[in-house]
């Protein structure tokens, strides 16, 4: 019988980086139980990885890659080793995210209202004037509770010294939450024994909380408002998630052509029983395509008259049109100031120091230090157009310099962070790979932050690109309380020897 090589844990090191699980060959407090268990599995860990991949295939968890022919559905790439965060740390992060979203929502509401923040000189007027995501059509609208970004996906990273930063806030149509939920279903199947013995926080209350958040926006209070999830259609890269969430929410999964706005400024969904009034639209279509009457006239995926209905208050839209103004990476630089301004508090989660190329002094600094910086376009998402100075050729640096000089307002620069690593199975070995984390924050009457979120992992050695469209994978994220660990609590038959050695 061929002998399989066991994944080795004792020699695991991640020099120069903060590793989420192990430090100097020893498990971090929150990870003790998990690491001992995983190490005790020996080669069986590889079977669990294979089992997870089969579960994913059988459950049909896919994502779409645009460049492929046909419909390009691929199985969701998943690493079976979970990412662990302590309850204590997570509570602090959650509080910071709620604080951040509260300030961001106040900012958006202010911008489309009296714009006090500009008058008071907190954010310069030019930033607003040149923002591609500011929507004139939204000025003067007051959504319920002053909340514009009901659903936010913020990207968190951890630097070398262990500090957690918010890297960006996605306030338009953030995706990934369905994969967070599906990842948990997968690990529950392959690590059922661990779930019995560890106090891992469940993640599956998200759909209910999302439903409550959306239902709470209904202009017709009642116990069962009609909710529709508006998708660009089956060819959108996030269609799997749209279908998944619509099912979980009990919402109609609609495309633009399924909705009509009548002369009474109300929105109806076309059903075989006739048109049915819609109260809340969870839209996964970008602003500019929402309504050809108000935005791009060539949009075929929008609903003519939708903005009219929204402004008339007959339908709620989440996220509200125009919320993306706070998604701008230039606005990002002002978030700490916004938190102080609106809440009178110090930010609980750090912002990455950000240089605005629109500012003369900042730009000089950026151009002089390109090789040590990351440069990002101000209004792109999905990792598009990101320039990493340390990895760029001279020609690429020169090209970046020209792009910055041509359009300084739309470029920001940040120091290159040493993203933390986590043990990941690659070719049968446990190796360090860089990760980030996308938690989802619901804002409404009762704010809610997911327990953990979607951990994305860059599968290539040394790679920092975690996007699934560019070779990234994912891990389940376990928030658990390490204080319940300790030799008396652990079942030795499950958790293996206390010393971290290979079998």
């Amino acid at each position: 019988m061929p002998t399989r090589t066991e994944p080795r844990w004792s020699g695991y090191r991640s020099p120069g980086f903060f590793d989420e699980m192990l430090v100097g060959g020893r498990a971090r407090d929150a990870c003790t139980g998990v690491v001992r268990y995983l190490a005790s599995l020996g080669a069986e860990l590889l079977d669990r990885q294979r089992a997870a991949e089969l579960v994913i295939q059988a459950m049909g968890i896919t994502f779409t890659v645009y460049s492929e022919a046909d419909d390009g559905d691929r199985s969701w790439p998943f690493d079976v080793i979970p990412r662990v965060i302590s309850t204590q740390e997570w509570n602090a992060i959650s509080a910071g995210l709620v604080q951040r979203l509260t300030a961001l929502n106040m900012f958006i509401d202010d911008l489309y209202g009296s714009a006090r923040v500009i008058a008071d000189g907190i954010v310069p007027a030019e930033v607003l004037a040149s923002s591609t995501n500011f929507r004139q059509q939204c000025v003067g609208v007051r959504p319920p509770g002053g909340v514009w970004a009901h659903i936010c996906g913020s990207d968190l990273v951890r630097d070398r010294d262990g500090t957690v930063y918010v890297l960006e806030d996605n306030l338009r149509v953030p995706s990934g939450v369905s994969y967070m939920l599906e990842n948990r279903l997968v690990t529950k199947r392959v690590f059922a024994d661990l779930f019995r013995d560890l106090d891992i926080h469940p993640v599956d209350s998200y759909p209910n909380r999302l439903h409550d958040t959306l239902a709470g926006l209904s202009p017709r209070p009642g116990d069962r408002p009609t909710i529709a999830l508006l998708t660009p259609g089956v060819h959108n890269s996030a269609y799997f998630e749209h279908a998944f969430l619509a099912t979980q929410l009990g919402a109609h999964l609609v495309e633009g052509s399924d909705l009509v706005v009548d002369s009474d400024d109300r929105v109806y969904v076309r059903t075989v029983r006739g048109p049915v009034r819609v109260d809340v639209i969870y839209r996964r279509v970008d602003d500019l395509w929402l309504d050809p009457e108000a935005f791009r006239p060539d949009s075929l995926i929008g609903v003519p008259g939708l903005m009219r209905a929204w402004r008339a208050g007959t339908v709620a839209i989440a996220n509200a049109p125009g919320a993306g103004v706070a998604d701008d990476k230039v606005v990002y630089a002002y978030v700490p100031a916004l938190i102080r301004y609106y809440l009178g508090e110090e930010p609980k989660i750090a912002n990455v120091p950000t240089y605005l190329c629109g500012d003369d002094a900042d730009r000089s600094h950026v151009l002089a230090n390109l090789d040590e910086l990351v440069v990002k376009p101000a209004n792109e998402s999905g990792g598009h157009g990101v320039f990493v100075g340390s990895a760029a050729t001279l020609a690429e640096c020169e090209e970046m310099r020209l792009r910055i000089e041509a359009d300084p307002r739309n470029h920001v620069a940040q120091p290159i962070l040493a993203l933390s690593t986590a043990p990941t199975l690659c070719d049968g070995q446990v190796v360090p790979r860089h990760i980030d984390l996308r938690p989802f924050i619901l804002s409404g009457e009762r704010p809610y932050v997911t327990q953990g979120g979607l951990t994305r992992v860059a599968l290539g050695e040394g790679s920092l690109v975690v996007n699934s469209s560019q070779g990234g994978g994912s891990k389940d994220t376990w928030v658990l309380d390490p204080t319940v660990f300790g030799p008396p609590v652990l079942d030795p038959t499950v958790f293996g020897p206390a010393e971290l050695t290979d079998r």
Partner: protein
Amino acid sequence: MLLSRFAESLYWAGRYLERAETVARMVKVHTELLLDLPRAAGVGWLPLLAVTGQGEEFLDRHTAPEEEDVVEFLATDTKNRGSVLASLAQARANLRASQVVLPREAWEVVNNLHGWAAADTSGAIDRRTRLGWMDHVVGQCQLLAGALAGTMCDDEAYGFLLIGRHLERADMTIRVLDVQAGVLVGQSQGGVSGGPGALGGSDPPDTPYRDVTWMGVLRSLSAQQMFFRTEGGGVSGPAALRFLLQDERFPRSVEFCLAATARGVGQLPRAALPLASCAVAQSRLRALTITDRFTPGELNQLVDELELGIGEMHEILARTYFQLEGVPPALVEPA
């Protein structure tokens, strides 16, 4: 409440799945039939193209109805929208668009079947593998029907799938009768002792083959065994026609399909107009008496009327449920 768009997708999925299954079965049966017939019987591949109404389309692209070309055209040619493979692709696209209202397994069956058929197009054409290929398509379509019946709520979504299936099935049965029975009824006109234009003309010179082809008609609609059980053996033209048109219990008879469609439509809201259009076709069929003296002219007229009736049912369903024509807004408020 079912979105109109999903209703339309499911209706078409029902139609395309039925078409894929029926065309595959016809190709299989015709292949078997030709093995039995002498070349001199002169039965080639044209009747099959006539059933699908594609003789002209085929001859635009091919000089003669050669076996392999016809089979390719009917089974795997994706430029022919009525081929088995094109029908599966359409069914798949429609089911994909309405995935959220379907059991996950159902989508997987169609997805796999389409992938399999697209990957093995030569298997459909080669005589040695053709029957197995066709059997697989028929079998998987039936597996899907079973999976849906066993796992899906008997709701509006399932209703539209069934309506699509039954309308398509009625349509295909009528087409088969039009062409194949038409040929047989016509042949008997020239019979030795039969009256002019009569169905029951006895003892034409090619008697054994006439029986074979009436059986072929029954077989291409999976009707042979049930026909014998119901009629007690012996194939006669009038009996076969009566069975395929008017039998109330055989699931591929026109009567059964129309009744099933009417039952499905009856479960839907605002069904008065669609139901009325079903009733027109049904009463035409019920008023019909098929005797030995049934002529090709009568058969042609009946076929034309039934085809028109089915076309009209489709139009009215589309206007009522897919386009929501004439429905005032806010007709329904959520419960």
